[in-house]
């Protein structure tokens, strides 16, 4: 646990160094595309912090100066499958973005969608020593949370304090300075496969970049796609990517649950490819041009030429109607949404006061998806696009860039995590020089 704590802390330091330099890259390693945005931080935020209007979650402080996306290679289900290919794809994206920004970036904040995220809700309690909550007490109560057995080879990706309770008062966002006797906290912990993180780290290191932060793409696309009141009142974000579909539930501006379904738009493409016996690239083209989930009588007459280069006239001149295409696509999309529904049910989403669901990600652009999703997920479904941030090119404003944009916000204004607080001295191993030093520092 301490090793992870140290590495996450090191990443935070790296992020601070990047802020000081003023340039940081965000990298969304997806299954179908790798997007790289370069952000420039212009010092303190220009908008004043007046009553009620926050600093807009830090998004007024940065500007996107470079953006590039490339077709992803070697990534399956949001996990790196072929290291060399992925490294090359990352290099392509970073180089193009650097070329556009005309600056060199050394720090990168990355997100990925796979690695089987698992959510845990932890609770911890701490008796205050002198009735006023200090930063030390917050750190102590966070480290008092008993961590469940994550399983072999799993690591903590996010560990965010969600709620603090002081004596019988609960729902405190920031308990520091308040008076009470017993501090309790709820923490949301997200664990992922350690090997996936290691692979990503290795690829980024091979590109001469330093990792300044890492996030789950379900989390960051929720940040960018859910509007402020949805985050506050409770909503689920379903990020339908290429290889996996991320699910995150937000409540009181904190993520309280995240999961992912290992199915996405690429499976729809492969269904088309298999069903019609056409190459994947052509299937992808047909899907994006003519795809849909609701067939009408007009679609029976719209014939799609599939083409081919086999030399056999009969095979190369095949045509299908759009209805047939929809007939192939719809079961898979339904399957994805039903799987997402079951994950949400497992998380107890139906007990939440607000049942808002936001669909985002590249695969959410299938025409008619909102109608289909409303039938499966409930009536409060909308299609979400990411927030507009300064300097973002028009081509990168679509739903497919939800996690890249969310990563920008994450880079500018990260939520407090467990490792942002100092380890209390009790947690150091006994007889450690650090512990003695820490004790002196705390007591004098």
């Amino acid at each position: 646990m301490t090793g992870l704590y140290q590495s996450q802390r090191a990443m935070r330091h790296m992020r601070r160094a990047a802020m000081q330099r003023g340039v940081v890259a965000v990298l969304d390693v997806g299954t179908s595309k790798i997007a790289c945005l370069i952000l420039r931080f212009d010092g303190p935020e220009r908008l004043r912090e007046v009553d009620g209007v926050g600093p807009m979650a830090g998004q007024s402080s940065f500007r996107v100066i470079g953006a590039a996306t490339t077709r992803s290679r070697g990534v399956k289900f949001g996990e790196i499958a072929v290291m060399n290919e992925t490294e090359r794809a990352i290099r392509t994206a970073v180089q193009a973005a650097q070329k556009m920004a005309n600056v060199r970036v050394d720090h990168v904040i990355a997100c990925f969608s796979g690695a089987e995220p698992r959510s845990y809700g932890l609770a911890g309690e701490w008796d205050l020593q002198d009735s006023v909550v200090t930063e030390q007490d917050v750190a102590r109560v966070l480290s008092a949370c008993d961590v469940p057995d994550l399983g072999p080879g799993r690591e903590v990706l996010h560990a965010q304090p969600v709620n603090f309770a002081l004596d019988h008062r609960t729902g405190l966002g920031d308990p520091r300075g308040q008076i009470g006797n017993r501090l309790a906290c709820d923490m949301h912990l997200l664990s992922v496969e350690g090997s996936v993180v290691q692979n990503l780290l290795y690829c980024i290191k091979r590109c001469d970049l330093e990792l300044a932060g890492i996030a789950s793409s379900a989390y960051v696309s929720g940040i960018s796609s859910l509007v402020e009141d949805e985050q506050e009142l409770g909503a689920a974000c379903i990020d339908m990517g290429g290889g996996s579909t991320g699910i995150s539930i937000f409540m009181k501006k904190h993520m309280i649950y995240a999961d992912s379904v290992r199915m996405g738009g690429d499976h729809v493409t492969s269904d088309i490819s298999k069903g019609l016996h056409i190459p994947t690239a052509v299937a992808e083209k047909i899907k994006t041009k003519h795809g849909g989930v609701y067939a009408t009588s007009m679609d029976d007459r719209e014939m799609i030429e599939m083409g081919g280069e086999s030399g056999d006239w009969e095979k190369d001149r095949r045509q299908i109607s759009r209805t047939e295409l929809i007939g192939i696509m719809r079961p898979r999309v339904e399957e994805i949404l039903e799987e997402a529904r079951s994950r949400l049910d497992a998380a107890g989403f139906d007990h939440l006061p607000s049942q808002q669901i936001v669909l985002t990600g590249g695969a959410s652009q299938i025409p008619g998806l909102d109608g289909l999703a409303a039938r499966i997920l409930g009536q409060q479904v909308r299609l979400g696009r990411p927030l507009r941030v300064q300097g973002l090119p028009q081509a990168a404003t679509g739903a497919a860039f939800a996690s890249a944009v969310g990563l920008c916000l994450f880079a500018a204004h990260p939520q407090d995590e467990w490792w942002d607080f100092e380890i209390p001295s009790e947690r150091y191993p006994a007889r450690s020089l650090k512990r003695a030093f820490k004790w002196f520092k705390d007591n004098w």
Partner: protein
Amino acid sequence: MQSLGGPRVYTRQPRRDPAPSRWQYRMQRLWLTPLFRVLFRVGLPCFVIAMVVGIYASDEGRRAALTGTFTELKEKFQNRPEFMVGLVSVEGASPELAEAIRARVGLKLPLSSFDIDLDAVKARVEELDAVANAELRVRSGGVLQVLITERMPVLLWRLEDERLEMLDETGHRVAGLAARTDRPDLPLVAGAGADVATGEALEIFAAAQPILPRVRGLVRVGERRWDLVLDRNQKILLPAENAVAALERLMALDKAEDLLARDVLSVDLRNEKRPVLRLAPYALNEHRKAQGIDTSGSEL
């Protein structure tokens, strides 16, 4: 029946997006490093230029050849006929002085105007006593024009060893003179230090205008005051201070009493409260006789 767009054929491959090689990627990142860019764009050319120049100049023969070429070019340019000076024209000087100035300029003409040190020539010309001010310029057509302002003699100065020199109003020597009769129009001064007080001398001569035909000259006494010497060896001893005022008073006295026409040896005006007359011996005796004083007839 087909849709309005007609059948579409998908045979195009997706856009090629080749990955950069590791080295290409690194080179691009290096090139985007600001320090490296500055070094490459400024440092490297500077270094190359310095290197080339250094290697070229490290050889003695090449350096000599380079300077030789340069001086040759320079000389070639300077010796072009447009820059050659072949004539010295002296203006504003008497013919004898002009000759002297030509000799004094001392240039081996024809000479390039770049090689003439005008300041030195000017200093040489101005060393001549008769030249108050010289102005030199190289005019087109290869003429070195010397504009001379001559010193005008206003006084003759008789030195200890009977030499005569002409002085201008500032007391600077203009030229020597063989005989007084060469310039009878100039007033004469004598005595050591007379050239220092020429201004006062001129004022005294102006004040002595009424008796000017009788004036023989001024004698500087003790580098301090003047004696005005008239014919018949009459002397007017002027004070060191206010000499002109004293002389004017005497002129008034002379006009009223006709004093200087009498047999007076000297008029001593050194003490302004008590002018003293010195009579000639004969006149003194006659004066005493007239007063009824019996004398031995000595000349005292």
